[in-house]
C-alpha cells in the first residue's frame, strides 16, 4: 500500500482509511452499547421488580407504622382531652380548683387533706370525695360541721368508723357540690 504514490494521493488514501476506521469504531461502539443494553435488560427488569416489591413493603410498613402511631396519638389526645376536661369549669362556670380551695378554707389546722376526687354526674351535680387525716376527733367533727353548714356543699357525712379513734383519724367522705350554677352565683 502507498507504494510509489505522490503525497497528495497518500493523503487521500489515508484520509479514506481514517474515515472508515471512524465508521467502524462508531458502529462497534454502538453494537457494544446495544449488546450491553440487551444484556442489562433482564437485570434491569429483575431489579425494577425487586424495587417495586421493596417499595410495596415499605409503603405497607409506613402505613402500618402510621396507623400504629395514629392510634397512640389518638389515645394520647384522648388522655389529654380527659385531663383538660378535668380542669375545665364544672358546669358552665366553676373550676375544680375553686371547690378544692373552698374545702381547704373550711379545714382547720388539725385537718390534713391528702386526696380529692370528683365526678360530674349526669344531672350536673358534682360528687366530691375528700380523703385525709385529722389530728383529733374534735378537729374532724368541727370540719364536718363547717362543711355541713356551708350551703355550697350537701351531704357531707362521715361514716361512724371514722370516729372510733381519738387521734390521727383517717377519714374519707363523699359530698355533693350543690347546684354548681346556683352556687356560683352565690360567690
Amino acid at each position, binding site marked *: 500500500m502507498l507504494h510509489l504514490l505522490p503525497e497528495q494521493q497518500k493523503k487521500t488514501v489515508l484520509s479514506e482509511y481514517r474515515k472508515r476506521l471512524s*465508521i467502524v469504531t462508531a458502529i462497534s461502539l454502538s453494537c457494544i452499547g446495544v449488546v450491553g443494553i440487551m444484556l442489562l435488560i433482564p437485570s434491569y427488569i429483575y431489579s425494577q421488580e425487586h424495587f417495586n416489591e421493596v417499595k410495596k413493603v415499605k409503603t405497607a410498613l409506613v402505613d402500618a407504622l402510621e396507623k400504629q402511631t395514629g392510634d397512640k396519638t389518638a389515645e394520647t389526645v384522648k388522655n389529654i382531652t380527659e385531663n383538660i376536661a378535668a380542669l375545665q369549669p364544672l358546669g358552665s362556670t366553676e373550676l375544680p380548683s375553686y371547690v378544692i380551695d373552698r374545702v381547704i378554707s373550711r379545714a382547720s389546722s388539725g385537718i390534713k387533706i391528702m386526696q380529692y376526687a370528683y365526678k360530674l354526674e349526669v344531672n350536673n351535680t358534682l360528687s366530691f370525695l375528700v380523703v385525709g387525716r385529722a389530728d383529733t376527733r374534735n378537729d374532724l367533727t368541727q370540719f364536718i360541721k363547717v362543711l355541713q353548714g356551708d350551703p355550697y356543699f350537701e351531704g357531707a357525712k362521715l361514716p361512724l368508723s371514722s370516729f372510733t379513734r381519738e387521734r390521727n383519724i383517717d377519714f374519707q367522705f363523699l359530698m355533693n357540690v350543690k347546684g354548681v350554677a346556683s352556687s356560683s352565683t352565690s360567690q
Partner: protein
Amino acid sequence: MSFLENIFKHFPTPEFLSMSHVGVDISPTAIRFIGLKRTTHGLALAGFGEQLLLTVTKDFDNIHANADVVAALKKLQRTHKLSFVEVSIPEEKAYLFTTDVPVGDDASIRNNIEFHLEENVPISLSDALFEYYIINKNEKTNMLHVAVSVLPVAVAEDYIELFTSCGMTPVSFLIENQALSKAIIKKGDPNSYLVVNLGFEKTVLSVVSDDAVQFTSTVHIGSEDFTQAIMKEFNVSEQEAEKIKFEKGFSRSKDNESLFLSLINTVSALKDEINRIYVYWQAYQEKVKAQRTINSINHVILAGKDSTLIGFRDYIAMSLKVDVELANVWLNVMSFDNEIPPIEYLESLNYGTAIGLALPKKLK
C-alpha cells in the same frame, strides 16, 4: 504460526476496513484484474476479469486521455464494482537501480538514496517518487544493499487521473516485472532467477535475486512478432496465425519445418538477448563477489502466454544450459493440491502481473 497470526486468521480485519484492493494490469491489448481474498485456508480468488482493448496501446504516455483505455476501465469498474486498485507501471516508464547505503533508519536511508538518485536515473529528485527494498546487509562495511524503484511524478499523476476518472482509487503502484516476480517466485526465496516476460510487443527480462528485482532490460520482441512472422510466411490472417502458433509451435519436425524457420529469426534474437543478460549477471556476480554473495542464475522462468509455444522452452534451455520452467502464477496464492484455479493455465500466464499486484503486502 504466532498467537496473533492465529487470531487474525480466525478474526480477520473487516473487508470495509482492510480496504482490500485488486491488481490491475494494463497491457497493450487488454486490461486485466485479479482480486484475492483471505480464507481460513489461505488466499483464494475473489474475482478476475479481462477487458480487451479495441486498439493496441503502444504509447502509455498521457494514458488518462486514451479513450479506449478509459472506456475499458470504466466497463471493468461498473461490471465488477472495483474500488481500490494497485496498478502496474510499464517497465519503460519507471527506473530501477541498486545501490549501497549506510545502515540507518528509514529517513537516513531515504536521504542517502536521494543523494545518489540523480546519478542513477535521468530525472531530477523533485520529479521523482521512489521506494526502496533492502536486499541484504554487508556486516563488514555496515552498508545496506538496496533496490530502488523510481517513478516520475508525472507518470504517477497520469495514472491517478486515469483511475480516478474511472471511479477507482489507486492505493499503490508497482513496476510490471516487480509485480510479476511477486507472483511467480516464492516469497523469501534467495535464489537468482532470470524472468522472461514475453509480452505483446516487448519482452521484459528481469533478474530476481534475494527476493528483489535487481536488474531489468526490455527487448522489443514480443508475441506480435511471432504472429507477424507466421502471417508473412503462410500469408494468413492474424487469427489463423495465432491458431497455427499455438497448435504447432516452435518444434523442429519435417512437417513443421517452414513454421520453425519462420520463427527462428525472432526466437533466436530473443534467445540472444536472454543469453546476454544471463552472461552479464554471471559477470556481475564475479565482479561483486568480494563485496557480497550473489547466487548465480540457475533458473529461467518464462512468463506470458506465448512462452508456452511448443519447443520454445526447450530451445532456450538448450541454448543457455540452465533449467527453464514455465511460470506458475498461483505459486504464492494457492496450492494445486487443494484447489484448481478457475482460470485456464494458458490464460493464467497473462494474469501474472495482476496476481502479483493483488497479493497482500505480507506476501510481496
